[in-house]
């Protein structure tokens, strides 16, 4: 039987964010439909609406022409819609069969579970999928890829499965594992299931998808057959503008000054033996895979993680950062990666979010805050960093992501730092705001600050940095000058490491 899922004018608001606007398109039986778009384009939000995790603010979705409204994922699963998430939702201590039939194990009328029957049916699915595992294996003994496949089997074991969606399924899989996943996806497709596939990897999308839906900043851009568009066209539609131009037009700092910060043999619980120098007016990029130790290096420098050994010198003078507060007094600040958990004080308004880093400077000897001084700081912060807010009294959560980030930058810049560490500063903000940030970062360098830029986006690191340090497995694997940097070279250092320890 042919199934259709149709989205009609789906709109979703979160406080401060319009996540989706007027999205309409449909998915058909026997096709693999890929959602593509930048971070924050609304791909996952749309999936979460379809499986009842979120409720749309307006608009509706229909399955086979019938209006549906799932209030929670279990209702969607009952109706034949399953989403496989990046984070596995399997129970590690149960067997494969117990996971597959979780919550609906075959049982007799007294509620006694018929394990044999569950195992038999699971074995059928395993052989359908052409896999080599036993229903009685514990899930914790499986590889990550197989754990994910157990989730797929769980969805597949329901007779009424109509649509199965994958949210970044390959993020932690190896090439051969991806191949076995694709084999299963093709099988699902051949059986007439609808498949939705979300990924950032263009090669995968070209290999597996029949059709793509492009989203940009929560808006629907278009819906194309895979053969109709080239990869470049896809990227242009996703991004809406050529990033290359932005990097070329930056007003870069030409004069790099004396040594500002020297990090000697920094060691914490999370990094081993990191040494490097940063100059005045320099933008020093930190590249590497997630978990390579870049953030942890920054945390070690500012004393957020305890420094086990090593030395820090600022302008030639030995400094000790036992806590972020010490670092701040010494003029070294970190703008953390995760805005929501490490940056914003969500109970505070915009103004108090700016001044919280400067309460020492803004209070007298008795600890009484000087409102006038605070107001001046807030007003100049809002002006200088062009924070779009109707007033300083606005709750910071109500601002857009880019303006929240600017608020945090304003907080830190009010402390007059010498060294600025930015950890993934443009994550989850739209491209217009990104360009603004890039200009801001260059301006800081021009003012003579030393900037450390941690970023997972290679074009960003290469476009902005004067020099790039690559980390792998919690230590530095190489260092490249801007003019010598290539995506391949950086990736190689990040994944394989450098020869003779990579130092030029």
């Amino acid at each position, binding site marked *: 039987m042919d199934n259709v899922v149709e989205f009609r004018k789906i709109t979703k608001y979160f406080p401060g964010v*319009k996540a989706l606007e007027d999205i309409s398109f449909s998915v058909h039986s026997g096709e693999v439909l890929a959602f593509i778009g930048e971070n924050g384009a609304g791909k996952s939000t749309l999936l979460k609406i379809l499986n009842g995790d979120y409720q749309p603010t307006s608009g509706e979705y229909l399955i086979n022409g019938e209006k549906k409204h799932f209030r929670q994922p279990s209702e969607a699963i009952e109706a034949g819609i399953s989403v496989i998430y990046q984070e596995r939702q399997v129970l590690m201590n149960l067997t494969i069969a117990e996971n597959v039939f979780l919550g609906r194990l075959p049982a007799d009328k007294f509620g006694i579970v018929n394990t044999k029957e569950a195992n038999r049916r699971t074995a059928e699915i395993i052989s359908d999928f052409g896999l080599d595992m036993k229903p009685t294996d514990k899930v914790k003994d499986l590889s990550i890829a197989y754990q994910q496949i157990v989730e797929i089997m769980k969805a597949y074991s329901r007779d009424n499965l109509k649509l199965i969606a994958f949210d970044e399924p390959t993020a932690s899989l190896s090439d051969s594992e991806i191949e076995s996943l694709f084999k299963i996806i093709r099988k699902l497709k051949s059986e007439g299931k609808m498949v939705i596939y979300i990924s950032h990897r263009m090669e995968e999308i070209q290999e597996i998808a029949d059709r793509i839906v492009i989203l940009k900043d929560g808006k629907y851009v278009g819906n194309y057959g895979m053969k109709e568009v080239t990869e470049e066209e896809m990227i242009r539609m996703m991004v809406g503008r050529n990033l290359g131009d932005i990097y070329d037009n930056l007003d870069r700092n030409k004069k790099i000054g004396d040594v500002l910060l020297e990090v000697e043999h920094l060691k914490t619980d999370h990094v081993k033996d990191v040494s490097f120098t940063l100059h005045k007016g320099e933008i020093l990029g930190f590249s590497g895979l997630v978990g390579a130790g870049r953030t942890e290096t920054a945390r070690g420098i500012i004393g957020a993680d305890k420094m086990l050994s090593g030395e820090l010198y600022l302008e030639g003078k030995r400094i000790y950062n036992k806590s*972020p507060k010490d670092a701040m007094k010494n003029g070294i600040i970190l703008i953390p990666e995760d805005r929501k958990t*490490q940056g914003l*004080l969500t109970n505070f308004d915009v103004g108090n979010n700016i001044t*919280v880093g400067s309460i020492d400077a803004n209070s007298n000897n008795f600890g009484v*805050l000087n409102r006038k001084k605070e107001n001046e700081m807030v007003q100049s912060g809002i002006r200088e960093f062009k924070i779009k807010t109707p007033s300083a009294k606005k709750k910071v959560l109500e601002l857009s992501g880019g303006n929240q980030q600017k608020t945090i930058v304003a907080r830190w810049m009010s402390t007059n730092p010498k060294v600025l560490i930015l950890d993934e500063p443009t994550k989850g903000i739209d491209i217009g705001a990104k360009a603004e940030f890039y200009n801001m970062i260059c301006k800081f360098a021009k003012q003579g600050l030393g900037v450390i830029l941690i970023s997972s986006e290679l074009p960003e690191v290469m476009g902005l940095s004067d020099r790039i340090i690559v980390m792998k497995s919690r230590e530095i694997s190489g260092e490249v000058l801007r003019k010598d940097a290539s995506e391949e070279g950086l990736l190689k250092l990040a994944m394989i490491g450098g020869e003779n320890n990579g130092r030029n």
Partner: protein
Amino acid sequence: MEGIKGSKDRHFHINGSNFVLFCAIIVVIAIFTSINHNFLSYQNFINILVAASLIGLVAIGHTYLIIAGLNDLSAGSLAAFSGVVAALLVKNMGFNFWLALIFTIVIAVLVGVFNAWMVTGIKLDPFIATLVSQAIFRGFAYIISNGKAVPISDKTFIKLGNARFLTIPLTVWILIIAYVIFGFILAKTKFGRSVYAIGGNKEAARLAGLNPNRIIYTCFMMMGALCAVGGVILAARMNSGQPSACVNLEFDSITAVILGGVSFTGGVGNIGGTVLGVFLIQSFNTGLTMVGVQSFWQYVARGALLLMALATDYIRKKNAEKIMLEDSMRNL
């Protein structure tokens, strides 16, 4: 009543949710007055404030702690323990009252240090940590007093319980002064701001250069001092240090604070709300006694009040989210 509101307005910010609370107080007063006409009288008003002096002081501590994302279940035990300690120091050790008071405060502050250490040092949840000290210090209160009330004959000590200044009891003055001072600290100083910051997001506050552990220690130590003063006042009023006093004091106090608009999840609230919350809960307690409700029913009534407080907190948060969402929909 009007007098109270007027004086509060100058010192404290009265916002929308406080207004709701103010109306609730009016309703409670109206109901009790309709049953017993003596409820609405100057003398009864003063009685309520005197009765509120203990829970009022402790509620200041809870306001700070809960805004900072912490809590304290040991307040009642600590107040009883403090009353017994002060009485014993005067009776058996021959301390004069003032020395005994200072000594008691120091001991209670050390208990606060112990609570803070359990929370920051061995990373216990504040609820669990203070459950530990709740048990320990109730136990010590019985142990050092042999389980019996310790009589007080010292004149200065007793005077604390019944002296008046400008016709208003001394204990009420202490309460008013405490609210003015701690209200000012919470609203106007960098320490107060830090309390809100760590309650909103501890990790972000730490990365913003604040020292959460120091703030946690200060809040618990402050709570210790407030419990000590409250316990000593109670002992003075009862002419004895009683190891069995103040059971469930912390629950009344937390109820008052939540009623006053402090969010249980931290980061939100103010002292003005606590003033109203304390007054509401104490007029409620006094009212129930005056109209002759059997004391067992008072437990049920308090439970209902706490439920109301938590429900109000929930509705308040839901509304705030709704308003934010509507704002975004209009402006984006």
